[in-house]
């Protein structure tokens, strides 16, 4: 399928009024008490997976065997946590019983830190690397047994985040483009030639439907948020030398059926973000994107209405973001143990502390179960 045809079909699907699969699934379930899930370390370097109850503001922690990256809420009690790349282990944790189920990567594969579910919640998709053949892969597992049942190519190196599109039939994959090999730990081996891409894959066949690239090949395409209307927000990571050259932007946006484009930001504003967004979330009501910006020690706010950066709110080592429990609000974590509410629907955007756990170091990403009223 050509990209133009794909865009047309994508737009049709979206205009058909479909909702993002996960949001549909959320809505199909009984009302739940909102919970946040995130990986964290403590000051001793031990690894945990934590659940924060937004109503009671209580925390449950489960020690796990690897440093985690992104979480995926399954229900009020359990969630998946994907190991930080290069990871050979991911876990499913039941916080009501303390049960930790580990699942391992296949030989010559490692996990890259993210995953998503199929529309019927029977299949789990994980981003992986076939490091001996320098290929990005999408692992497919039975969610119940967590056993691998298939895999697809990701059509690029270093697939990082992936999401299910609202049609329930298509995966969108952020191929970061960076070659690594476990022998060299996290060393980036191909910066000069890296080719990040945003790729759409047909679930039924594993075929590539469309591929998009940005003009600057040093902008690694890493984190995604897919809206119910099929819009795709992309958080970027600049791999050039920031002391010599700043990137032109750190957020890309693809309207449903449209082209992938960078949101505008002035040169004197981009420097403060220090080339790196760790997490991103989109609120369609406000047409706002909120990104955790740890190197810039802030939360950056972008408008899809004006296609541009709006402002940055100071927050040391901001690490994860999600939609909040109230309209016009977001939730933010940082690696100094804080959980915050970001209110943007008021006259002036502001951050208020929900709870501080000084002994915790929140890792990138927050996964929330519950509703955005």
């Amino acid at each position, binding site marked *: 399928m050509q990209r133009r045809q794909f865009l047309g079909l994508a737009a049709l699907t979206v205009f058909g009024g479909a909702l993002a699969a996960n949001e549909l699934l959320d809505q199909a379930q009984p009302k739940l008490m909102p919970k946040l899930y995130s990986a964290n370390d403590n000051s001793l*370097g*031990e690894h945990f997976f934590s659940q924060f109850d937004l109503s009671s503001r209580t925390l449950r922690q489960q020690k796990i065997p690897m440093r985690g990256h992104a979480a995926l809420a399954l229900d009020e009690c359990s969630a998946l946590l994907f190991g930080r790349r290069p990871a050979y282990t991911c876990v499913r944790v039941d916080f009501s019983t303390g049960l930790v189920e580990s699942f391992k990567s296949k030989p010559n594969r490692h996990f890259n830190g993210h995953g998503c579910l199929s529309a019927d919640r029977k299949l789990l998709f994980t981003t992986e690397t076939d490091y001996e053949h320098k290929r990005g892969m999408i692992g497919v597992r039975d969610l119940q047994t967590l056993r691998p049942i298939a895999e697809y190519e990701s059509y690029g190196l270093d697939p990082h985040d992936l999401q299910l599109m609202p049609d329930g039939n298509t995966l969108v994959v952020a191929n970061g483009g960076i070659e690594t090999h476990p022998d060299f730990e996290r060393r980036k081996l191909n910066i000069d030639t890296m080719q990040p891409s945003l790729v759409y894959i047909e679930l039924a066949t594993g075929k590539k439907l469309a591929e998009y690239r940005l003009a600057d090949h040093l902008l690694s395409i890493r984190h995604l948020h897919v809206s119910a209307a099929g819009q795709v927000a992309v958080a970027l990571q600049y791999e050039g030398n920031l002391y010599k050259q700043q990137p032109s932007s750190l957020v890309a946006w693809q309207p449903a059926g449209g082209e992938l484009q960078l949101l505008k930001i002035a040169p004197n504003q981009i420097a403060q973000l220090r080339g790196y967004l760790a997490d991103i979330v989109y609120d369609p009501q406000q047409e706002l994107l909120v990104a955790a910006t740890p190197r810039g020690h802030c939360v950056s706010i972008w408008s899809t209405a004006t296609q541009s950066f709006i402002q940055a709110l100071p927050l040391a*080592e901001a690490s994860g973001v999600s939609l909040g429990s109230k309209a016009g609000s977001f939730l933010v974590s940082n690696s100094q143990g804080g959980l915050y509410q970001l209110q943007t629907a008021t006259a002036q955007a502001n951050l208020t502390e929900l709870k501080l756990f000084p002994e915790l170091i929140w890792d990138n990403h927050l996964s929330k179960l519950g509703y955005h009223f």
Partner: protein
Amino acid sequence: MTPFQQQRLSLSFSGLLLAFCLVHPSLADNTATSSATATTSLAETLSSAKDEVFIQQLITTGIRPLYRDLEQASQQLTQASTDFCQNSSLEQFQKLRDAWGTSMLAWQRTDSLLFGPATAEQMDFQINFAPPKKQIIKGLLASDKPISTEVVAAAGVGAQGLSSLEYVLFDREQTTEQLLTSFKDASGQTRCSYIQAVSSLLEQNIKKLNAAWLSPDADQQFTNNQEVIDLLIGKAYQSLERINLKKLTQPLGNLDEKKASYPYDLEAWRSGYSFKIIKANIEGLQQVFVKGGFLAWIDKNFPSEATKTAVVSFEKQVQDLVQMKLPEVDPFTLVAQKQVSAELNELVQRTRGLEMGLKRQLAVLAKAQLGFNDNDGD
């Protein structure tokens, strides 16, 4: 339009003000005062400028001596390999092992300089890749032909460098005499040609690395003062993290639920250099931070009582570590048998304290980019 959207234009000015503050978040708040803004502007000027005099001093007295010593050590290692292969005596074998140790420690002294020439084209892995790829090395040693530097280069980093040499020069399953015999039997010639080739390739690579820092435009490794700060503090922090996590905590099993120890996780466990390596890491850090003038430069450019205290404290912590007595027992044996050692406990505590001092004091005061989640992005 939401109230927030209506405020966007009016926020633009405060956004600009915020942009200044965000460069140095410790100074930032929503009601930035004029004095804070002035301080921030000074700090911005400092970070974007390039202090050529300091950078020259850093290179000349902090960095070059480490690479000069490394190159000299690698030349002696090549010579020792040649001498041993001409006369495979116990004495020459011991000299070769000592020359390997000297080179290994010289390399470890550059551990906080893993940027620029050291990482270009993965040079650091060509010099020391651990653990070595035993199967590749065994494959090379099984050859009935002499092994050249070209063959070793083509075999990949897993068969090159210091850890590969350690693998063939030290073996805890054999006595020294038994190991020496393996260089004299039918396959001894191949084994000897391998150590000569690895040593020679190692020397070539180290020569390139040293040449890069000896170059008249070596100061181009740093774009501005901020890059100096971020690189030196960031790489020193990563070195200290490796010491605490990989070289101590992990092998000692300090976070292990079963309370088991893992002596094979010690770096250079075959040779028994595991703790000497840690001290060498700190000695290198001392060379760059103290003799290279970096601590004094921080003290001068971020003047405050807190900075002075942090600088003095850090220098003393480094000095104490460099002077401390290491455990006399072989590290592998000590860890394998989980022997109680006051010296080892002291090493653990001191290196941990140094890491925290760097992260919580120096990095904050010098406004270095140092984070949990973002050292290399994800």
